[in-house]
């Protein structure tokens, strides 16, 4: 990082797409789809809010 020009730079690392995270993504996607079905079935409106 450097602030000499008034810009604060943060380096980013990159994670290549690999087979492991793709498999995990599919598992998560299935779980999400299943929870969405439940939401529809019971008419529940989920919230992203302070509990």
């Amino acid at each position, binding site marked *: 990082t450097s602030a000499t020009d008034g*810009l604060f730079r*943060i380096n980013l690392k*990159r994670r290549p*797409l690999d087979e492991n995270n793709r498999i995990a993504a599919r598992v998560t996607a299935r779980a*999400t789809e299943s929870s969405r079905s439940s939401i529809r079935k019971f008419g529940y*409106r989920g*919230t*992203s*809010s302070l509990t």
Partner: protein
Amino acid sequence: DGSDTDIVALKNYMDAQYYGEIGIGTPPQKFTVIFDTGSSNLWVPSVKCYFSVACYVHSKYKSSLSSTYQKNGKPAEIHYGTGAISGLFSQDYVKVGDLVVKNQVFIEATREPSVTFLVGKFDGICGLGFQEISVGNVVPLWYNMISQGLVKEPVFSFWFNRNADDEEGGEIVFGGADPNHYKGNHTYVPITRKGYWQFDMGDVLIDGRSSGICSGSCAAIADSGTSLIAGPTATIAEINHAIGASGIVSQECKTVVSQYGKTILTLLLSERQPKKICSQIGLCAFDGTRGVSIGIESIVTENDGSAVGWGDSMCSACEMAVVWIQSQLKQNQTQERILSYVNELCDRLPSPMGESAVDCSRLSSMPSVSFTIGGKVFSLKAEQYILKVGDGPATQCISGFTALDVPPPRGPLWILGDVFMGAYHTVFDYGNMRVGFAQAA
């Protein structure tokens, strides 16, 4: 609130590939976080997280080790589509590069049950969205950077290095933009819905031709926390067809084309209102602005006597068919060719939020896909929108497009994730409430 669920659900942290380091507390405890313009809270795992495996494989915040920690203690919970976290709000100093943000409220996560967070290489997420979507209405880190006078200009920018051979992953710059990482001038568009970095976008072009659905206008969000580009199913099916991506065969879609295709064509040619066509043929109700599902389960009998049922998906299939046929008519295609093409599109429908494989050897023949922003065309070449997984003969190619349907009035909506932001350096200008894009360098 609940109406935002669809958008939050898109977040696919599993594939989010760019992350940086921050420090929380005094002395700073290091965490790897995703800098996410699609959310507004900062959270990291807590040392008090005992029952989630994800917490055991990531760095954890220990408040007792920090001299600047201040207790808050209110419970907090964030639901993402790909998982949820819960815990407690805390307050401490946060070090981002050389900047130290004082008294930042963040979430110490004590539960991270999702496999997403278990496999993720990042410890937490640093939201760079607006306070309007901040859970608990917490003041976001970026707001505190500005109010504490840490940056000269209320602007931050992203550069993602899409060159896989380079070690450098990219850069986020607070206070401005690094001229080394873009070419030419940025094209700026105003924020149309504060909360997300959302703006109005024009037509999406496939090989220079209109895909139809956004020829009026679509909403778009610049989202650094999403890997791919997500958009309406109808357009993604067209892209899939153009790049040869596999899709799921939709029987409802094929039924609509075979039974109603000619009628839709005729109605469009007679200049009926396209939005009313699906209600006119009885597949949707009309709510005054667009077709809506009539919620009726229909049963038809197949030739072999078995009964096949279909539901509201017929309405969606019809609306897609109308967009496709309309777009083909504008290109002066013959009726026969149009119906054949639309039938082919039914084979290319993407799974919602799913990935589509393409043939790596066909990259050179794949068309460009372009987005019209601020009256300018931002094109992506196949090399830019296809992701390669693995090496050598085992290399697989994945389309950088995925489907997400958000109905009007909030949609149709596009999420421009890392695939787009990798090609176009993006400036988030908080002072002028605008987003800017320029070719990345």
